[in-house]
């Protein structure tokens, strides 16, 4: 009996011993199935189709790939909240996803992307959801922030950062969209339209500079997304940002080539790395007729910094009242009012991006209106500025409030007392999620400035071709589309594997077929639109080539079994 | 003066299966002030005739030829608008099923005033006044004008419809089955109203009915319709004493008559001919016991036969002798057998049947001709001991209670359906339960077969208390007790063949062998005179007539060889001509098989015919019980007296005494301390309200529960006004 058992055991062990070296020598384990996320086709068809295409190519590498298309809100949940082991979705951490960053004026400075996307400090809670952790890179990201004085030196650091990211292939950038915009040139002088680098023609400079050619000096535009707030202390999305930047002035504004320049400030003078003196223009007025003074400017930053300490689950936490703007003001250590028009900012640490991401970012708000509101909020536990909607928003910008209906429309008119009074009399933005309706309106003249187009660019092109009075403008966006890899886990923890996947992205085909030519190839988180910051040596390239990908994998020890399935390197 | 004159009227219906000649050459004269009764079985064209007169035939109906003259006007040539004007101003029609003839969502009063205003040209005020008068005239409380039809009882609705019909003072009133489906007391009251109105308004009336006793009460002349033809016309008296057509003869003898009870009722078996292809000879020939060869060839015409009578029969000259022959029910019975020719009649059927049926003596004494005692559940006649005992049985229903009732806003109410009834039933005995609708007789029937469980009291069946049986015992009980239903059209599963319906009880009771089951089914069908049985096995219920269906229902009840049968209104849905057949067969089989039977019916004459004993129920209580003849001929309880007085007698010479009680059984939602009947009782005394009446009985088992015979008989009469004021 026992003898029989023993002989069986011995036999089994012999077989195992024979088998083991064979498998371990030739190949490792099979690469497990991969899930690639994207939003649904209904939400953004372009992203869905792109993902589909790449997924099919990845399958040719011998991978088992599932394309998981889910609504944006759910996507956020599965990507954003499943990055660590402790997360609720830990049993299925995300592996690879299509992602999109949109262009905004404040992103004209590379700091935000350089730091916030990849620094290891924002790995657990911030935007570094891919889990990139590279001390060498962290050093670069920190260094570029401090390098205030020497722009060239900063460029060098940023180029190096781009090199690192491109080599490590943490995000596979493939395109910067060309934002197509259509202007009715029968009512506007096309020469008066300004193109802002990385943003397009729908920018502040166009809004104040565009020249109407008829008596009806109303600019009507539309958005397909949400127009859900009209609040100088909240960042609620793309469309509301347009509205706030026009209604509230800023000390500086990003100029058409992407560089901050004084706006409401007469001058911005750096006394040293930490101190900057700002002097306001004379004679500026709030929309309610009050004067704009330095204490208003100071309060605009103080409001962003306002907050209370709150205890939650035994943990003390600072709770800002304007959480959206707090990060942009948090580097300010002190504000000193010099006189009615000038004030001095003292920073905690040197910051090269201070002008772009703070002075040109924060809206100037009237102290006499906001101080009572903020003070009231400070006494409440669970309310912040997001819960505030002014009856009639008061700013000092070139446009002032006329009417606002949440997610329906906003109606602004030119502020007569502004030193840079716009050429148009009224600016209207409709919410039109229905793309057909958008097209119908721009053709019928019900709308004369189409600034946002998430749909098929080809259709827009054909409409413009058919209508003499319509002109199509397009500019490379600061934003980009890319595939993000969760570098925490296999197989995407392997740089070679990521590089191989990058080779499966048919960049040109996507541009030609999916974007109908309205996209520029991307290879970095810094858009080609930001010409200055792209003056780097050639970044590594990843041409579309399945063979190239296979060769890369083979070189790293990956192998394929008889069924064509990809296996990890042995050992 | 002739008010209505119909000449050779022919009406056809176009159906998918061919043209039905529903009225085929009818001629009829109606003199002013005449009260004509038009009688006949259903489907013989009575209602079609009516619809033709007022020209409201359905779309597929067509008047092919003939002439209808009303006061000299040819109605058929009248433009539709003028015809419309005539309706209800000159010719008022009370449609069949007048229960549903009132618009359910309008107050009765406003329907009446609307009629008066739109059709009669009355002004608002005048219309209202006239409406009040009319309600008075038909004996309705004028408060009722504000009520909706659903708040009316059947009799009240009928009165309201009569009021509407008379609203425009027509010269001719045609009423189609005005009292059918009404309780006997209500029926009596309505006929009273009609009679009274006939007198007061000097109306000309044409009354359509299948019930010859109604005709006898209200009409002075009779026309008998059969298969689209008129076969006899006569004044009432000669008609009822000496009918001149075999069909009339049969109809007359098919009716039970309280005044002159018969031992055996006549049943005119078979059906009227298919009117798509009417026979070339006499249309009644198929069912006629006096049929001769030439009847099938020669179509008899309506001819004078003396006494101012007309009859359409080849043998009308021999009618006097035929009438005497017709007194013998076997004559008609032969027709029944002939209807289902059997190649090889079963030996035990012969003789036994006729003996039992002509014998009419006390129940259990009739010797059954079947082999006796075939094991458990077999049909035995072991002794005349007690089979069933009801001891103080009560049944209450709660309505509108419970969570959902509360949420629906229903207030819980208790309905005292059956209150403390007790009686015993011996093996082989037959008991009749009678009373108006709502008196609890059907509930009692359901308690007896354990379709319902008693709330209080005990029902002991063959020594077992029914409330304590377990599932196995219950199954045993189920095999011994059966129920026969009122409506044969509903009593059989429409999706089952007859074989399936009949075999179901056997399957349930564990008869595994298919051939045994088949044999039992065939045998039982045979027993209820459905022969040859095989013909019926594969049929579906809708392929059979009502009479045949009721026989199938009877067969299903008997297929398990029960000891006890409850028959709930077994013939009320059937035509008069076939009723007798069912009753005869049931009665015969019960006697042959020693079956104890409880008949439930509102028809006392029927119960007198079928039952050894009769129990009269009122508001859930038995107010009188006793041997049939005793109860009918010597009623003790005022209620029984009223019920008997209300039964119309098919004899125009006998007029019913006026009733002293009002129609309408109160809803049994309260329990009475005293006598439940006190409120309606003409004899009520003060004691009746306060003290429960004693049960007084004689040695023959005739008991009544009434103070009139007890110690409180001297109690002062009830002051009803004071009572109402209370």
């Amino acid at each position, binding site marked *: 009996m026992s003898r029989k058992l023993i002989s069986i055991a011995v036999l089994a062990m012999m077989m195992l011993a024979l088998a083991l070296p064979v498998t371990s020598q030739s190949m490792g384990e099979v690469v497990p199935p991969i899930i690639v996320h994207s939003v649904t086709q209904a939400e953004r068809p372009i992203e869905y189709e792109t993902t589909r295409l790449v997924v099919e190519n990845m399958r040719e590498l011998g991978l088992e790939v599932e394309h998981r298309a889910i609504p944006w809100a759910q996507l956020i949940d599965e990507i954003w909240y499943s990055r660590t082991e402790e997360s609720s979705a830990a049993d299925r951490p995300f592996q690879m996803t299509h992602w999109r960053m949109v262009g905004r004026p404040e992103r004209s400075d590379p700091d935000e992307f350089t730091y916030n996307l990849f620094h290891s400090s924002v790995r657990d809670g911030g935007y570094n959801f891919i889990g990139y952790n590279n001390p060498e890179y962290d050093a670069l990201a920190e260094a570029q922030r401090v390098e205030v004085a020497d722009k060239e030196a900063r460029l060098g650091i940023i180029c190096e950062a781009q090199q690192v990211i491109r080599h490590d292939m943490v995000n596979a950038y493939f395109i910067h969209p060309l934002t197509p915009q259509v202007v009715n040139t029968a009512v506007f002088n096309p020469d008066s339209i300004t193109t802002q680098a990385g943003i397009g023609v729908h920018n502040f400079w166009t809004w104040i500079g565009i020249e109407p050619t008829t008596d009806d000096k109303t600019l009507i535009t539309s958005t397909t997304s949400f127009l859900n707030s009209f609040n100088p202390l909240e960042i609620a999305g793309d469309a509301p940002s347009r509205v706030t930047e026009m209604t509230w002035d800023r000390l500086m504004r990003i100029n058409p080539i992407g560089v901050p320049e004084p706006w409401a400030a007469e001058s911005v003078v750096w006394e040293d790395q930490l101190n900057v003196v700002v002097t306001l223009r004379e004679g500026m007025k709030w929309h309610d007729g009050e004067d704009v003074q330095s204490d208003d400017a100071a309060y605009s930053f103080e409001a962003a910094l306002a907050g209370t300490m709150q205890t939650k689950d035994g943990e003390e936490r600072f709770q800002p009242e304007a959480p959206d703007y707090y990060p942009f003001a948090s580097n300010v250590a002190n504000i000193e009012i010099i006189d009615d028009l000038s004030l001095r900012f003292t920073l905690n640490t040197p910051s090269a991006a201070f002008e772009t991401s703070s002075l040109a970012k924060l809206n100037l708000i009237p102290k006499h209106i906001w101080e009572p509101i903020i003070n009231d909020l400070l006494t409440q536990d669970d309310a912040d500025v997001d819960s505030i909607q002014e009856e009639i928003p008061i700013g000092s910008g070139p446009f002032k409030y006329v009417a606002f209906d949440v997610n329906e429309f906003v109606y602004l008119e030119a502020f007569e007392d502004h030193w840079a009074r716009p050429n148009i009399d009224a600016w209207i933005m409709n919410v039109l999620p229905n793309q057909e309706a958008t097209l119908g309106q721009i053709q019928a003249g019900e709308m004369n400035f189409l600034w946002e187009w998430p749909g098929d660019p080809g259709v827009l092109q054909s409409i413009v071709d058919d209508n003499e009075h319509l002109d199509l403008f397009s500019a490379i966006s600061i934003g980009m589309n890319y595939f993000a890899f969760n570098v925490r886990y296999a197989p995407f923890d392997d740089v070679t594997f990521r590089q191989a996947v990058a080779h499966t992205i048919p960049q040109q085909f996507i541009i030609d077929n999916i974007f109908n030519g309205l996209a520029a190839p991307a290879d970095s988180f810094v858009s080609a639109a930001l010409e200055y910051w792209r003056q780097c040596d050639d970044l590594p390239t990843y041409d579309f080539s399945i063979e190239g990908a296979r060769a890369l994998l083979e070189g790293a020890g990956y192998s394929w079994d008889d069924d064509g399935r990809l296996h990890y390197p042995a050992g | 003066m002739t008010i209505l004159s119909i000449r050779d009227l022919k009406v056809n219906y176009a159906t998918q299966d061919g043209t039905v000649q529903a009225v085929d050459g009818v001629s009829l004269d109606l003199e002013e002030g005449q009260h004509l009764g038009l009688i006949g079985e259903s489907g013989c064209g009575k209602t079609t005739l009516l619809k033709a007169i007022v020209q409201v035939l359905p779309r597929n109906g067509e008047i092919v030829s003939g002439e209808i003259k009303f006061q000299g006007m040819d109605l058929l040539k009248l433009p539709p608008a003028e015809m419309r004007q005539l309706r209800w101003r000159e010719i008022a029609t009370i449609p069949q099923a007048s229960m549903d003839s009132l618009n359910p969502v309008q107050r009765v009063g406003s329907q009446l005033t609307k009629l008066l205003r739109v059709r009669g040209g009355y002004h608002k005020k005048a219309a209202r006044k006239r409406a009040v008068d009319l309600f008075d005239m038909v004996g309705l409380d004028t408060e009722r004008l504000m009520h909706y039809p659903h708040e009316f009882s059947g009799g009240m609705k009928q009165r309201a419809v009569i009021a509407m019909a008379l609203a425009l003072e027509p010269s001719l009133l045609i009423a189609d089955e005005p009292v059918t489906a009404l309780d006997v007391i209500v029926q009596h009251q309505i006929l009273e109203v009609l009679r009274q109105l006939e007198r007061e308004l000097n109306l000309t009336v044409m009354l359509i009915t299948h019930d010859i006793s109604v005709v006898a009460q209200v009409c002075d002349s009779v026309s008998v319709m059969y298969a689209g033809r008129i076969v006899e016309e006569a004044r009432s008296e000669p008609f009822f004493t000496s009918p001149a057509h075999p069909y009339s003869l049969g109809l007359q003898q098919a009716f039970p008559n309280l005044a002159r009870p018969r031992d055996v009722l006549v049943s005119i078996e078979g059906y009227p001919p298919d009117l798509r292809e009417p026979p070339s000879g006499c249309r009644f020939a198929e069912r006629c016991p006096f049929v001769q060869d030439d009847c099938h060839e020669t179509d008899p015409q309506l001819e004078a036969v003396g006494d101012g009578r007309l009859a359409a029969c080849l043998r009308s000259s021999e009618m006097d002798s035929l009438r005497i022959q017709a007194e013998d029910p076997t004559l008609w019975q032969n027709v029944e057998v002939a209807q289902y020719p059997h190649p090889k009649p079963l030996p035990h059927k012969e003789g036994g049947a006729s003996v039992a049926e002509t014998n009419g003596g006390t129940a259990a004494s009739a010797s059954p001709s079947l082999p006796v005692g075939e094991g458990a559940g077999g049909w035995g006649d072991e002794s005349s001991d007690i089979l069933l005992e009801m001891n103080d049985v009560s049944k209450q229903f709660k309505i509108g209670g419970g969570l959902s009732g509360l949420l629906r806003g229903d207030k819980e109410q208790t309905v005292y359906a059956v209150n403390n009834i007790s009686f015993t039933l011996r093996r082989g005995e037959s008991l009749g339960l009678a009373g108006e609708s709502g008196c609890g007789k059907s509930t009692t029937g359901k308690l007896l077969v354990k379709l319902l469980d008693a709330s209080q009291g005990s029902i002991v069946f063959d020594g077992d208390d029914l409330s304590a049986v377990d599932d196995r015992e219950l199954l045993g009980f189920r095999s011994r007790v059966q129920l026969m239903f009122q409506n044969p059209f509903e*009593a059989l599963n429409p999706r089952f063949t007859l074989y399936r319906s009949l075999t179901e009880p056997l399957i*349930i009771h564990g008869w595994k062998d298919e051939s045994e089951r088949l044999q039992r089914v065939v045998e039982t069908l045979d027993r209820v005179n459905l022969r040859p049985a095989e013909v019926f096995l594969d049929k579906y219920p809708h392929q059979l007539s009502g009479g045949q269906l009721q026989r199938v229902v009877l067969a299903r009840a008997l297929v398990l060889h029960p000891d006890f049968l409850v028959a709930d209104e077994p013939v009320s849905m059937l035509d008069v001509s076939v009723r007798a057949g069912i009753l005869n067969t049931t009665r015969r089989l019960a006697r042959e098989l020693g079956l104890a039977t409880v008949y439930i019916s509102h028809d006392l004459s029927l119960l007198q015919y079928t039952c050894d004993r009769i129990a009269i129920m009122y508001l859930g209580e038995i107010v009188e019980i006793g041997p049939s003849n005793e109860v009918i001929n010597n009623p003790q309880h005022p209620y029984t007296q009223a019920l008997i007085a209300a039964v119309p007698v098919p004899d125009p010479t006998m007029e019913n005494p006026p009733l002293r009680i009002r129609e309408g059984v109160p809803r049994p939602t309260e329990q009475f301390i005293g006598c439940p009947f006190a409120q309606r009782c003409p004899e009520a005394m003060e004691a009746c309200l306060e003290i429960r009446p004693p049960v007084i009985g004689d040695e023959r088992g005739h008991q009544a529960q009434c103070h009139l015979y007890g110690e409180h008989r001297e109690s002062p009469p009830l002051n009803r006004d004071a009572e109402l004021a209370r």
Partner: protein
Amino acid sequence: MQQEASVRGEPPGKAKMEFRQGSALRQLWETNLEVFQRDKMALFGLFIFAVFAIVAVFAPQIAPNDPLTPLKNNEGDWIKDAMPYWLAQPGEDEAEGYVNNFLLGTTNIGRDIYSQLIHGSRSALLVGFSAAAAVAVIGTVVGLLAGYYGGWVDAILMRAADVAFGIPFIPFIIVVSAFLDPSIWNVVVAMAALLWRDTGRVIRSQVLVIKEQAFVSAARVSGASDLRIIFVYIAPSILPLSFLYGSFAIAWAILTEASVSFLGFSDPETISWGFMLQDAFNSLALSREAFYWIVPPGLCIMLTVMAGFFIGRGYEEVLFPRLRRM
């Protein structure tokens, strides 16, 4: 029970027996047959379903192309917005480097519309029939239990029906399909979770009527058990009603699935007609005047839904003869 002596001749043959035993089923079959014999429209509805069913089963064989893969021309680019060949300008396709044999053209990214249409019949029928089956089964069981047992069973089930009646239908489907993974099965489950309410109520009231009929009492008096009464006596009588509501449920389910897909809450990997319309709408087919893209899916939805209606009405006319056309 003891066997009685055979009074009569031989019992009839075995075959005939079986025929009689299956009579309830046969009757049911005959009712169904009657519906389609009597009502030409119902027959037409059945024909439509049959055609779509065949198309659905053989979709991969019938469809010339994969419905989801964009077609490529000789140069490897997608054949976008190709017109149906019978509408296209001659020679246009050669210039673009492909042979136009597309019956209904291609989408804006080069998917074959005709193939999508063929494959769409699969999800339509799948959704339609599975939802209808679920609705009919749940509704029938609920109706039978509530109607037969009454009391608290009835109270609970009918309150549940009230709740189902109070829940907004389309919003509920949207929320459920948004919260669960996009899949037509979730849509089916969500629909079934609400749609049983009509069937349940109607069948309940029908059961209440049938329950009171004498033949049911007769069965009880004969000793039949509750289960036997429910399934042998009552159920066959209400089954045509279940079919009626089932056929209507097919129609509603297909329509609802189309709506939900149109709003973008469906599984993009499963082609359905609603999804096609959503795709067309979001891809601006209206502006392109691509009627060959918009019209066919809508027509298909309409046809299948009407087929459900026709069959339902056929049942209605047999069950409720008063509605019958003369």
